[in-house]
């Protein structure tokens, strides 16, 4: 059953802040959005709450002229955010593409919150998503009692966004079956949604647009047709740019997850995190950090999220089977498992890496031996 229209109802205000596990962006950053709105002097596209300049500032953070500090939502290349905002301003649909864990959904939520003040018009893409999630469904009880009428119609987030001139968000677009994806083609080009049963149609109001996110590693799940792809401007969100940025992310997440899981091990030394992140980055980039040696890349993603899970499994090993201190031998199995996804190709890649890089690296002997043992 569809939930009551979010954003508009009184229910959201009744809920106390503490009871909610996670607030919507526009609620959590209400103050920032408010200050930006008051100080926004730039022209706005029709139905936008903030101007493109203010949206960019909201996402990238920084100090306003009056000294108010905006927290950065997206840390990374400023130009990508500019392209995303400019895309939405030209009423082209935006596709945020990238590896898992590159803040695609996060960026999409904050863009919607800043541009329309409402990030809740969300379609969660799964293999089971059907047309009614994108177009409209029927309240069958009503339908049986009254026959087809607008009251029996269950409006999808997409339809609501069209009616209100807001942004609809589609998560994991590539997981939606291809025939359901096709319904988007006409919505994006004609900007209308006909309801033939009632002889009605919804014409999108100005300000309507779509932000979709998709994962470019799981290609082939339901690859976008070129007709659909053509209707999107694609922005690829990259992995963390520098090793320090990535180490920082891993460190924070490992610490917070370790607490949540109550692992009986000490927080890992930053040096261990640096080693794991270095290995991941080097294999992912196909080059050593010093840029001197090129390497083969394995088939897996080796995302930051996987580095976090390697650290966590290492901590669990150290805590339950070791002496409570994270050592190379606790990491070796996890590392090998994360890297060797294809038993033939990846094994060659990992062996080559061990032989040509790890073996001769200062202070990495323990890791080399440990990894060789599990191979």
């Amino acid at each position, binding site marked *: 059953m569809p939930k009551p229209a979010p954003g508009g109802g009184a229910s959201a205000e009744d809920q106390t802040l503490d009871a909610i596990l996670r607030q919507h962006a526009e609620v959590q950053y209400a103050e920032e959005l408010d200050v930006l709105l008051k100080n926004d002097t730039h022209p706005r596209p029709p139905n936008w709450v903030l101007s493109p300049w203010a949206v960019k500032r909201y996402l990238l953070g920084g100090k306003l002229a009056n000294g108010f500090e905006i927290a950065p939502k997206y840390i990374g290349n400023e*130009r990508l955010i500019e392209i995303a905002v400019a895309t939405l301003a*030209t009423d082209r649909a935006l596709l945020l593409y990238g590896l898992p864990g590159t803040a695609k959904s996060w960026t999409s939520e904050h863009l919607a919150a800043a541009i329309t003040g409402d990030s809740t018009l969300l379609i969660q893409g799964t293999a089971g998503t059907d047309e009614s999630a994108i177009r409209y469904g029927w309240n069958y009880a009503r339908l049986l009692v009254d026959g087809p009428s607008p009251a029996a119609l269950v409006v999808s987030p997409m339809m609501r966004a069209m009616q209100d001139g807001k942004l609809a968000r589609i998560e994991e677009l590539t997981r939606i079956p291809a025939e359901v994806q096709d319904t988007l083609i006409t919505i994006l080009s004609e900007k209308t949604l006909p309801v033939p049963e009632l002889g009605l149609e919804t014409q999108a109001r100005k300000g309507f647009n779509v932000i979709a996110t998709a994962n470019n590693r799981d290609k082939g799940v339901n690859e976008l047709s070129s007709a659909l*792809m053509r209707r999107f*401007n694609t922005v690829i969100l990259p992995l963390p740019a520098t090793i320090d940025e990535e180490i920082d992310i891993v460190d924070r997440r490992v610490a917070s997850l370790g607490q949540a899981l109550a692992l009986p091990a000490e927080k890992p030394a930053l040096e261990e995190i640096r080693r794991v992140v270095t290995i991941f980055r080097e294999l992912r980039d196909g080059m050593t950090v010093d840029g001197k*040696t090129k390497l083969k890349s394995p088939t897996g993603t080796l995302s930051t999220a996987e580095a976090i899970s390697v650290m966590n499994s290492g901590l669990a090993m150290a805590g339950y089977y070791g002496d409570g201190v994270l050592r190379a031998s606790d990491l070796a199995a996890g590392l090998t498992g994360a890297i060797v996804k294809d038993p033939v190709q990846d094994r060659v890649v990992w*062996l080559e890496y061990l*032989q040509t890089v790890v073996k001769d690296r200062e202070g990495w002997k323990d890791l080399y031996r440990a990894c060789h043992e599990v191979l």
Partner: protein
Amino acid sequence: MSVHICGIRHHGPGSARALSAALAALQPDCLLIEGPPDAQAIAPLMMEATMQPPVALLIYLPDAPHRAVYYPFTDFSPEWQALRYGFSREIPTRFFDLPQSIQFACAPAETAQQTAAMPATPVHPSPDPFALLAEAAGFPDHEAWWELQIEQRQDTTEVFTAVHEAMQALRAGAPPPQGNEALREASMRQHIRAAMSENFQTIAVVCGAWHTPALQLEDAATPSAKADAALLKGLPRVTVTATWIPWTNSRLALRSGYGAGITSPGWYAHLWQAPDRVTIRWMARVAQVLRAEGLDASAANVIEAVRLAEALAALRGLPMPGLTEMHEATQTVLCRGEETPMRLIRTRIEIGEALGAVPPATPAVPLLRDLTAQQRRLRLEMTAEIKTLDLDQRKVIDLTRSYLLHRLRILQIEWGKPYQAAKSAQGTFHEIWQLQWQVEFAVAIIEANVWGNTVEAAATAYARHLASTTRTLPQLTALLHQVMLAALPTALDDVLAQVQDQAAVAADVRHLMLALPPLTEAARYTDVRQTKSALLLPVISALFERVLIGLLPACQSLDDDAAATMTESIAAVQTSLLRLEDPQFTAAWQGILARVIDDEGIHGLVRGVCCRLLLEAGILTSVELERHARHALSSATPATQAAAWIEGVLRGNGEVVLAQDGLWQALDTWVCDLSADHFVGALPLLRRAFAQFDASVRQRMGTKVKHLSTAGTAPPLPGTASDHVPIDVARADLTLPILARLLGVSQ
């Protein structure tokens, strides 16, 4: 009488447009252009129909051609437009910079360090004035600022006044010019004064924007004629030669000649050529390139790309999209966010490959002079007659000749063709060449001059270029070998680095294996040619380690053809190892081969060849060979695989296998047990396997098999050793004293 100073940026299309408009309005009767007066005599050649930009004025020292400066020009260079204006109206058109003959003489130390790869540059003022202005205007990048302010401007009136004022403000805060720059500006002023004294009515001066304030003669702060004359008096001079050479767009992108290189000549050319709707025309061209490569680029997407570029420009507060916005819009809309097709856009459009041409009347290029000088010194004749040359590399002159010929070969000037070294009876010291000079070489030399002014410099630069563009490993190692033969140490580093990089990412182990022989060949030559083998060994060992890791997986599931090529690759590694004579490598290699022959999943031919190699190395004993033969030739193995195995084992010298009784027994049993169908199927393979032996060996093999059938009772064949023959030690001992005397060892 009036003097008009037009401050331009070199290679700026906006400046060129503004300048053309200004000249048309001024109608000057004398033009002074920033450029080397040394090239005054050859400047009018630019009006020839066969002169096609991009070209460069090249000024060099005739006795040391590696010391040179380049002044590149392209269609949208303001200087080029000014020259064209001057020569077409036949008004006096002069270069008025400080002559390079003086600049060379004044700064020998500085220019001597410049190599041809990084041509000497007239000094650009530092700090960059435009960077200061851009910073003041809040731009992170001064290119972007200048492009926005000057180059993209369609309305060009008053530009020169504005540029002049900006430069005046900048230079007011800067220290007065020193050294070379002071001399250059003094020389420019003296030229203006000379032109004024000749009673020209309207003098137009075209120079880099930075110099404009210093050329205001009426300004009180400007040094007087007397001071300038004193400054320029008695400066040393050297003889220089000037000529035109063809240039390329990608080399315009380098910092060369005028000091300020431009990163995207294609974009500037577009700004220069597009009459209107710059953004739309650009995107249409991008779409054409993408379509030509078979990538989707619909008209609808071109529209969207233009809209996005314009929206980005608006978001960034620009009046029209610049190259950055174009680039980002193209990537986002037309290339679906992907990086790879953008490289195509970068080389095809943003840089835009173009090679200029110069008229035949152009004076000889320095590369030809250098070649002629070397050819005389080394007493090599340039004739169309075919001559054979035997070079003994122990002699200095022959070694130098060899270097020269190899370097020319790298530049694709095949004056000499090497004979296979194997054909020379005299060993590795000798190199046999066939020499023939061809007329086309003259053109090839002019073209090659782009890379450098001496044969060595040009070959180095070209080899480095090749190294950065070649992607397959065997080609790279072949290039490495060439570079070593040509003794180009600088290029060698680049090629080595590239080989290492490509080896690391090579997906095909066979490429790694085939890359080894040229490397080991080069390593073997190092002693003769006094180059360092120390450089090569790490590369060889890195390649070899990867071969060891990758060989087993690479041998899996090969079809007949793939197996045949794999055996060639294995042979390549084997030859390389024989050359290297490194016991550790050899042991590791034999270890891997031993695993190959045990692996049932590997094609029979490959396993047979590996068995053979191990047998020859003495690793595989007769007993083990027999075991392998029984497995490979058992009825459980498909007949074709078994036949392929036999073919592999028999490959090479017949004598080695003749002694292996176990092998023959297994073969005999297998053939006898084959069903009629299978026998017919295996027959062609077996025939092929035995066809390589000559009749006498085949005869002995036949005899051997015949005796095998009378199991054990037959006497051993003469000439073949058998494990079962009892030796009469007492009688054998009798021969020892004689043998010792023959061999010259004491007992």
